[in-house]
């Protein structure tokens, strides 16, 4: 429950630039470098340019979590997505690493810059998930972590003297890695996605897709999509959040044809047809990561980074976080009271 336009303006300044679907007050602005003979031009559209400049100045946060059994190529894929060593495992295996006995949550932050835009990227790894003999409830530490970030944000938001820009540690996107068995999902996959699709944006990904031929891939994807549907799992982009027909058409195509993306990751380069490409070298050929005939990595990358990055953050903020917030402010609806470390002492409305 938000107050009127005044409060919305504050919010926009606070949590980086999260465009509100409400109308911005009409204020005449000086057009910049536009043909002055256009009569009646006000210049509202320049707000896009202003937002862009602001984003470039402040930069933005993006938090991506990767979940899946060990060895499915999570770290390599994240490194490939962001074209840098942002995940702690580089191309060699660390021989000292053992599978942890419980699920751990490891968040590593990096600042990467491109075209003048700064992104503070946090990759949250979940080693130990699905690797034990008994994996019952192994999603609980993950769910707990996600809720803790919402709690942190909530505490900052309800603070009377709240920060101009609340640091956003909420998980915007959770890549769930499906093992390319070619058969079906595993019981653990279903359980995890059932529980977590309610609190975070889940993007299911078929890992190490170079294991499957084209027919196997198509069949497997169809089967997985069917299983997800039959079990009522709403992965991102969720049908219920399509804002308009344009969104729906675009997202329908992605949901029904492209997802789950069958990907291959690599941080090694090879020479193919005179170009340097990222790929995997085998005795029978080179698998090009960014070649759409070989795998769907480019689709995943474009989806997460180039087209839906902002939407992922918005859905997290407007839907998942709001759900959490409503539950908490309605007298602890079912949630045990949380104790989260926040920096300074503050007066709170909670």
């Amino acid at each position, binding site marked *: 429950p938000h107050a009127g336009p005044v409060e919305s303006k504050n919010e926009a300044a606070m949590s980086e630039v999260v465009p509100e679907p409400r109308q911005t007050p009409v204020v005449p602005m000086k057009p910049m470098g536009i043909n002055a003979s256009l009569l009646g031009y006000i210049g509202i559209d320049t707000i896009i340019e202003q937002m862009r400049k602001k984003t470039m100045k402040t930069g933005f946060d993006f938090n991506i979590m990767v979940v899946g*059994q*060990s*060895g*499915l*190529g999570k770290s390599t894929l994240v490194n490939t997505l962001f074209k840098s060593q942002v995940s702690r495992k580089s191309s060699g*295996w660390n*021989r000292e*690493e053992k*599978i942890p006995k419980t699920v751990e949550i490891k968040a590593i932050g990096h600042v990467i810059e491109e075209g003048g835009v700064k992104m503070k990227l946090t990759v949250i790894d979940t080693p130990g998930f699905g*690797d*034990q*003999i*008994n*994996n*019952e409830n192994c999603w609980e530490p993950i769910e707990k972590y996600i809720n803790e970030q919402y709690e942190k944000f909530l505490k900052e938001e309800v603070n009377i003297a709240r920060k101009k820009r609340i640091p956003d540690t909420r998980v915007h996107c959770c890549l769930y890695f499906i*093992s*390319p*068995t*070619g*058969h*079906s*999902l*595993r*019981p*653990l*996959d*279903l*359980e995890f996605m059932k529980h977590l699709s309610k609190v975070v944006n889940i993007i299911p990904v078929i*890992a*190490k897709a*170079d*294991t499957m*031929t*084209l027919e196997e891939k198509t069949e497997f994807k169809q*089967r997985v999509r069917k*299983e997800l549907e*039959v*079990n009522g799992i709403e992965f991102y982009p969720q049908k219920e959040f399509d804002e308009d027909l344009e969104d729906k058409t675009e997202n329908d195509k992605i949901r029904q044809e492209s997802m789950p993306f069958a990907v291959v990751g690599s941080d090694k380069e090879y020479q193919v047809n005179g170009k340097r490409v990222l790929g*995997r*070298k*085998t*005795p*029978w*050929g*080179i*698998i*090009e990561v960014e070649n759409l*005939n*070989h795998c769907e990595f480019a689709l995943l990358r474009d989806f997460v980074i180039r087209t839906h990055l902002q939407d992922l953050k918005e859905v997290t903020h407007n839907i998942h976080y709001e759900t959490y917030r409503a539950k908490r402010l309605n007298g602890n609806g079912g949630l045990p009271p949380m104790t989260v470390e926040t920096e300074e002492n503050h007066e709170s409305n909670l």
Partner: protein
Amino acid sequence: QQPAQFTNPETPGYVGFANLPNQVHRKSVKKGFEFTLMVVGESGLGKSTLINSLFLTDLYPERIIPGAADKIERTVQIEASTVEIEERGVKLRLTVVDTPGYGDAINCRDCFKTIISYIDEQFERYLHDESGLNRRHIIDNRVHCCFYFISPFGHGLKPLDVEFMKAIHNKVNIVPVIAKADTLSLKERERLKKRILDEIEEHGIKIYHLPDAESDEDEDFKEQTRLLKASIPFCVVGSNQLIEAKGKKVRGRLYPWGVVEVENPEHNDFLKLRTMLM
């Protein structure tokens, strides 16, 4: 087999048992051989495809692959299929014991119980028959070999792999196999093999060791044995599809970036596995 060159039976001092190997050979061929192979591993690791490739048959013609929701309630099953294969007059009665459901559950604590009971039951039955009165027609259903499938997607052995192998290494010959080896580049394979061998040693798991070649065997055989031993665990690719490659038809898998040939020793260890087994 060449008949042994033996001297004229009428020569004094000649006993004649040099012919024994031939007799054994003839009798065995008449009787046929029995072999029971157990395959254990999580769903989707390529077990069935590999078995079909090894024995050039389709052991699972009417297979329905269950979805994840069905698998939640399932426990480990034991499914034994028997085929009679004949090649050049030699009959093999092959039983493949499959263990669907292994490693699928969220909690795999009870995974091995069913499997270990099965193995023990076969021993018990054999013992019973052996102690019985009619021993001429004992059927040997004991598990002679267990292919344990290790996932090529992981970084080595999983806790479940270690626990299971330790539970059965004193009951059956374990041959660790890495299927779907076309997931891995050659370097990754070497690394994975080494890592698995290190972990096997670290945990004291006793896998099947090929016996060294006898000193009187020929050099080729000795070399082959050495090569086989050095390749364990075998990284294999299975397929029964014929693909056109380099002008001839080969069994393989067709990818947009190339063809993986099952019987090409540079692509995977399938031939080695087959040699070792047969």
